[in-house]
């Protein structure tokens, strides 16, 4: 009785589902990074693939293909390898400067749709052709995850705000906010992260420096571990032209947004709390004196206020909204529309107040 019931179930399971298509891990060719460029006669896709030859060492290869569209690039590249190319271990997608300026919506949509692609995939923009960057990685490092590790490391212990495919699709598809991606620069054959590329919809508009990236990080999340340099002038160094710097490291920060008014022109006040640790201070500052530290906190606060206001006006000027002010206003008003807000984005009132606290003065 039992067997009579259970046997057809097994048979049906086996017949109806058949076997899944196996992709044995050493019989496939893993794509670790992809890049998309716009060239004179269409689009160029480049893939960074790896082959594991000996223990702890990876050999990298770069494959190119050119066509009128980026779609199906991997299947075109398949004609050049002995094992099938698989995108499941893709950790980095790069866009060339021209390609990013023309729009990267199709590629993001393609990544977003594919369940094999990790939502922690890192996206990035390069200041020239992205394929060049992959060639440099292949030449100088034999580490397939070099670029994504570099970005992640900078998010954890640097000035980059948290960004990956997950965050970027939220920023891209979400109303009232815009996407931002890490921006790579190639200098004398070396790669570095130069800051952030800010997008409006899927088109790159401007790029900002790492210094401004810290301000953005502070505005949208906890800026733990970010570094910043604040110029100070003290009594003893009042000589003309000489300026001293304080290097601070953020231990914790929190931004509070208050929407004072929505109609007709929204007004938002931003209150920032920043707890810092002094990495470096000029010699004349007595770190044991309460008064001087309070004085320093005030100077730093007003400096941050100035910088953030400058940064916000830069964003308004370029009509990009990585902070998500539009989304903030949308959450407070019933009749919000993206088109209307875009028109008034440049004139919305923002006031910033920054409260800095020095929690730790020792150098670490």
């Amino acid at each position, binding site marked *: 009785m039992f067997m009579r019931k259970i046997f057809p179930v097994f048979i049906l399971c*086996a017949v109806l589902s058949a076997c*899944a298509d196996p992709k*044995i*891990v050493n019989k496939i060719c893993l794509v670790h990074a992809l890049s998309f460029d716009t060239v004179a006669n269409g689009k160029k896709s480049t893939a960074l693939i790896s082959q*594991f030859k000996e223990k702890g060492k990876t050999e990298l290869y770069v494959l190119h293909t050119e066509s009128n569209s980026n779609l199906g690039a991997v299947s075109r590249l398949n004609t050049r390898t002995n094992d099938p190319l698989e995108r*499941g*271990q893709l950790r980095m997608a790069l866009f060339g400067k021209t390609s990013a300026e023309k729009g990267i919506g199709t590629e993001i949509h393609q990544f977003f749709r594919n369940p094999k692609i990790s939502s922690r995939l890192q996206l990035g923009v390069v200041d020239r052709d992205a394929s060049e960057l992959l060639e440099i990685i292949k030449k100088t490092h034999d580490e397939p995850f070099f670029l994504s590790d570099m970005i992640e490391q900078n998010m954890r212990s640097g000035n980059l705000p948290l960004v990956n495919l997950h965050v970027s699709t939220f920023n891209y598809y979400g109303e009232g906010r815009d996407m931002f991606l890490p921006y790579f620069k190639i200098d004398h054959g070396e790669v570095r992260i130069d800051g952030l590329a800010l997008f409006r919809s899927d088109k790159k508009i401007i790029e900002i420096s790492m210094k401004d990236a810290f301000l953005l990080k502070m505005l949208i999340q906890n800026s733990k571990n970010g570094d910043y340099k604040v110029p100070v002038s003290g009594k003893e160094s009042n000589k003309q032209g000489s300026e001293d710097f304080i290097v601070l490291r953020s231990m914790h920060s929190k931004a509070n947004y208050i929407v004072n008014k929505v109609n007709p022109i929204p007004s938002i006040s931003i209150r920032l709390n920043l707890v810092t640790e002094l990495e470096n201070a000029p010699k004349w500052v007595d770190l044991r004196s309460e008064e001087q530290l309070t004085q320093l906190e005030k100077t730093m606060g007003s400096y941050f206020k100035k910088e953030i206001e400058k940064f916000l006006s830069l964003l308004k000027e370029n009509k990009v909204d990585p902070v998500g002010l539009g989304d903030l206003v949308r959450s407070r008003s019933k009749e919000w529309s993206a088109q209307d807000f875009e028109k008034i984005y440049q004139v919305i009132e923002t006031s910033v107040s920054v409260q800095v606290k020095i929690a730790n003065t020792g150098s670490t």
Partner: protein
Amino acid sequence: MKTELKNLDQLLKLSGLSSDFKKTVILLGEQEVSIFYYSTLIDAKWMQQHLILVLQNRSLDSEIKKIEDIKAWIPINDIEITDDLTNIQFKLLKGYAIVQLHENDQKCALVNIADNHGLRENNDTENEFSVVGPKVGFVEDLDTNIGLLRAQINLPNLIIKEIIVGTTSKTKVAIIYIDGLTNEQYIQTVEQRLTDIDIDFVFDSSLLDQMMSDNSLTPFPLFVSTERRDRVVYSLINGQVAVISDGSPYIVTGPSTLFDFFISAEDYYLPWILGSFFRLIRIFGVIFSLFSTSMYVAITTFHYEAIPKDLLNPLIFSRMNVPFPPFFEVLFLEITIEFLREAGARLPTKIGQTLGIVGGIVIGQAAVAAALTSNILLILVALSALASFTTPIYKMSNTIRFLRFPFIILSAIWGGIGIFIGVGFLFIHMIRLKSLGAPYTVPIFPLRIMSFKDSFIRSSFQILNKRPQHLRPKSSVKYLPKQVKQKNDLDEE
């Protein structure tokens, strides 16, 4: 566990429920003298020579008038004349014989003819070790085993019911339980199932286990069988029934739950934090042992995207020269391990050790060197074999080793989804299982929150003062929690 007894007759009647409680009547002149004793606790030869023979010889030339005379008659030092019922009960269960002059006499003589509680020279546990705690195990002799149990459970309510099973072997089988504590439903079920058995030969109690079990279409053992005395005593005082057959050092206890198989007696001898920790380690070991190799097959065959990036290189490198798909690779190693275990169990001890070296080092190293398996898999298979042996009950570790194979096959066909299909089937099967009509997966299904105290973790003795309610004992309180660890400092008095 206390029973209120009013007089000696009640005690004798209650004790009479057990089949090892004996009454001998001897005739001294005109007088019929009754001697009561537990045959499993006394030394029969000693009783014959120094009690019965002496009484009979003396009665030839003089007559016994009152019970006190016995003291002068019998050449045994430890004789007590008393009518204190508690004392009589205590001494009776320690192997004393009761000599009663007339029927319904309240005053009787307690004669010490106790055996050394059936302890033979070599009855250490052979397969279930513990570092802390007693090492007393059962032997092949039924009476010795019952004596071992009686020596620890000082209760007249410890009932031993003997029945004969086996048309050819006529094996003595004893059902052991505590009267007034164990739920009668279980006792009746066991008794009925044992009497219904129609088999020619009973070699071992594990045969009874299979005959009694509620479902024979399962790889899971439905009863705990153990050779440790402390384990059986603990299950008896919790309200379980034990079954033992003559000629078997294993006692079957039931109804059991899935968690009983992962409980070691040592958990109770260690502080509860450590006991709980080791129990959790054991449960983790089982899960690891069940799923590690099938996960390896699923991930390397289908879900390469789930490999963490730091593991990618070592994993691919170790599999680089292996010509088989992961499924055959795993099957090859798993079967090798099963060969080793099976051969090791059959071989004499000394050769067995050599085999371990041959198997472990030579085959393991050579298989990797010959690129038949990857060394990561070798580690996984060895670890999962090791983890399957952490289970204290051997029958359960067999089950776990067996269950690995369906999972490996499922993962080779459908990958991770296959494993989940397998887990689904396994869960459905487990929650349908019953042991003596009681659910097998209690306290998880049906959910019994109070029984969690002694399942995944072993709580402290202050909390474990009640018997597990899922066993439906007739009295639930074991002791009062406040008095367990009552401590008085000297200056507090």
